[in-house]
C-alpha cells in the first residue's frame, strides 16, 4: 500500500482553482519529485496533502486512511511533516530549541532522536546553542529538515529545499535528502533544480497547469526527450 496517495485532487485558494485533478502516490522508502513550470501547482499539490488548501473534490490518503481536508495540526499528528520553502525555522530560537519544537507533539523522551539527528546533521550539533536566525541558508535548511524529522514522520514533504542556495549547498542538501531517505523515511519533494532532483529520485511527476503531464522513474523522465526539452533545459543526455 502507498504511504501517501492523492487521487484526482481538485482545489485552490478561495475561488481560484489551481489543481485540476492531480493524482500521485508515494510508496514506502521512495523519493518522489514533483517538477514542472512556475505556476503549475507543484507547491499547491503539496499543500493539499497538508490541509492548507480547500479541496473541492478528490481524496488524500495516508497509509490508506482518508486525511482529505484534515487541518494541518492534525495531519502532523498523523505523521506527515512538511518543510515549507520559506520561513521554515523559528529564527529567534536556538538550533536545539527549534528541534525541540519539532518534537512538540511527542509525549515520550525525544532526546535519543535528537542525538540521532545530530549525527545525520553534524553542523547542527556544533551550532546547537546558536540562534537559528544567524545561520547560513544551507544550515537553516538543515535545521528545518531536522526539525521536521524529530517526529520520525511516516513521510516528509519538502517544498523546494534547495531554492536560493549556492550550488555547493544544493549538492549537500540533496545528499542529506538521500541520507534521510536511507533511514527509511519516504520523501515527496518539489524541486526547481529538476535534473539534480530526478537523479536522486525513484520516481517523478511533471505537473502542468494543475494536471499530471508525465510520470515515471527518475531516470526515464531524465531520458524522455519531451520532458528534457520542456523542463530540463534541453538535451536529454545530462
Amino acid at each position, binding site marked *: 500500500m502507498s504511504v501517501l496517495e492523492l487521487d484526482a485532487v481538485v482545489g485552490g485558494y478561495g475561488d481560484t482553482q489551481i489543481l485540476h485533478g492531480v493524482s500521485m502516490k508515494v510508496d514506502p522508502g521512495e523519493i518522489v519529485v514533483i517538477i514542472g513550470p512556475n505556476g503549475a501547482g507543484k507547491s499547491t499539490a503539496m499543500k493539499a496533502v497538508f490541509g492548507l488548501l480547500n479541496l473541492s473534490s478528490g481524496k488524500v490518503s495516508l497509509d490508506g486512511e482518508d486525511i482529505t481536508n484534515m487541518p*494541518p495540526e492534525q495531519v*502532523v499528528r498523523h505523521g506527515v511533516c512538511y518543510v515549507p520553502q520559506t520561513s521554515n525555522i523559528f529564527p529567534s530560537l536556538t538550533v536545539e530549541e527549534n528541534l525541540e519544537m519539532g518534537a512538540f507533539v511527542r509525549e515520550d523522551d525525544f532526546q535519543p532522536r535528537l542525538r540521532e539527528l545530530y549525527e545525520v546533521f553534524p553542523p547542527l550539533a556544533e551550532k546547537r546553542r546558536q540562534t537559528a536566525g544567524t545561520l547560513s541558508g544551507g544550515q537553516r535548511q538543515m535545521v528545518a529538515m531536522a526539525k521536521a524529522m524529530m517526529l520520525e514522520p511516516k513521510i516528509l514533504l519538502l517544498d523546494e529545499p534547495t531554492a536560493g542556495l549556492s550550488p555547493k549547498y544544493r549538492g549537500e542538501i540533496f545528499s542529506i535528502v538521500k541520507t534521510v531517505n536511507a533511514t527509511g523515511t519516504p520523501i515527496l519533494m518539489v524541486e526547481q533544480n529538476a535534473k539534480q532532483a530526478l537523479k536522486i529520485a525513484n520516481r517523478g511527476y511533471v505537473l502542468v497547469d494543475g494536471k499530471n503531464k508525465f510520470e515515471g522513474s527518475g531516470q526515464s523522465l531524465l531520458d524522455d526527450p519531451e520532458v528534457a526539452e520542456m523542463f530540463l533545459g534541453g538535451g536529454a543526455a545530462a
Partner: protein
Amino acid sequence: MIEFLNFYLIPGLVLGSIYALGAIGITLTFSILRFANFAHGETMLLGVYITWSLVQFSGLHPLIVLPVAAMLTVLAVLFIDRAFYKPFRTSPTIMVVIASFGMMLMIRSVVQFIWGVQLKGMTQGIQRPMVFFDSLRISPKHVMIISATIVLMLAVHYLLSRTKIGKAMRAMSDSPELAKLTGIDTEKVVRMTWIVGGTLATAAGVFLAIDTHIDTNMGFKMLLPMFAAAILGGIGRPFGAVAGGLIIGVVEEISSYPWIGTEPLLNPGYKAGVAFAIMIAMLLWRPSGLFKGKVF
C-alpha cells in the same frame, strides 16, 4: 543629589517596574496573538479590584492574596478570550483590536458598576521610609515592589527559556503559521499567553495601588505608558519591554526634576506626555524598538 535619588530616581524605578510588568503582557499578546490589546489596562484594573475585595474579606496583606486574585483575573481573561477574541482568530487583525477596545470599555463599566467609582486605598496608614546614611530614604513598599518585580521577571525568564510551553510561546511569536505546521498546540500557547499577561497585569496593578491608591481610571492611565514601553523595547521582546518600562518610568519622573534653575524642568502634570513622546519618537525613527522587535 540625594533629593534626586529619593524623590525622582527611586520613584521612577518603582513606576518603571510597574510599567515593565504590564508591558510584558502587551508585548506577548502583540507578538503571539498579533494584536494590540487595548483591554490590558483594564485587566490590571480588574485584578486590582479583585485583590481589594479579597483583602477586605480576609484581612490579609495584598501580596498574600495576590496569587488568588491573579488566578481569578486570569479566569476572567480566559473567558473573555474564548467569548470575544477567539471568534476573530482568523479575521483581519483590526477586528480583534476593536473587540479589545470594546472590552476595555465594558470591563471598566463592570468594575465601576460593582465596586463604585470612589477612590479606595489598598493599604491603610502611612509607612515610615527606611533611612540609610542619614539621608537616603527608601520606603519599605518600594523595596517590596521592586523585589517582587524582580522575582516575577525571573519567573518569566525561566518560563520562556526553560519550559516547553515557554519555548512554544517564543516559536509562535516568531511565526504562528510555522507553529501550526509544526504541530504546536497554538490554542494552548494562547492560553498560556493570557495566563502570563493576566498574572503580571494583576501584580502591576496591585503594586501601583499599594504605591498610590485605587480608582477606576488607573488601568486606562497605565495603557499608554505600557504600550510605549513595549514599543520602546521592541514588540515580542519581553525583556525589551522590561527595559522600556524602566526607561519610561525613570524618564517620566526625572522630567520634572529642576535640572535648570529651581523650577521643575517639566510640569509634573505633563508626565504622561513623556511616554507618548517617546513612543512617537520610536515609531518614527526606530519602529523595531531597542531590541529589534517585530514591525507590523
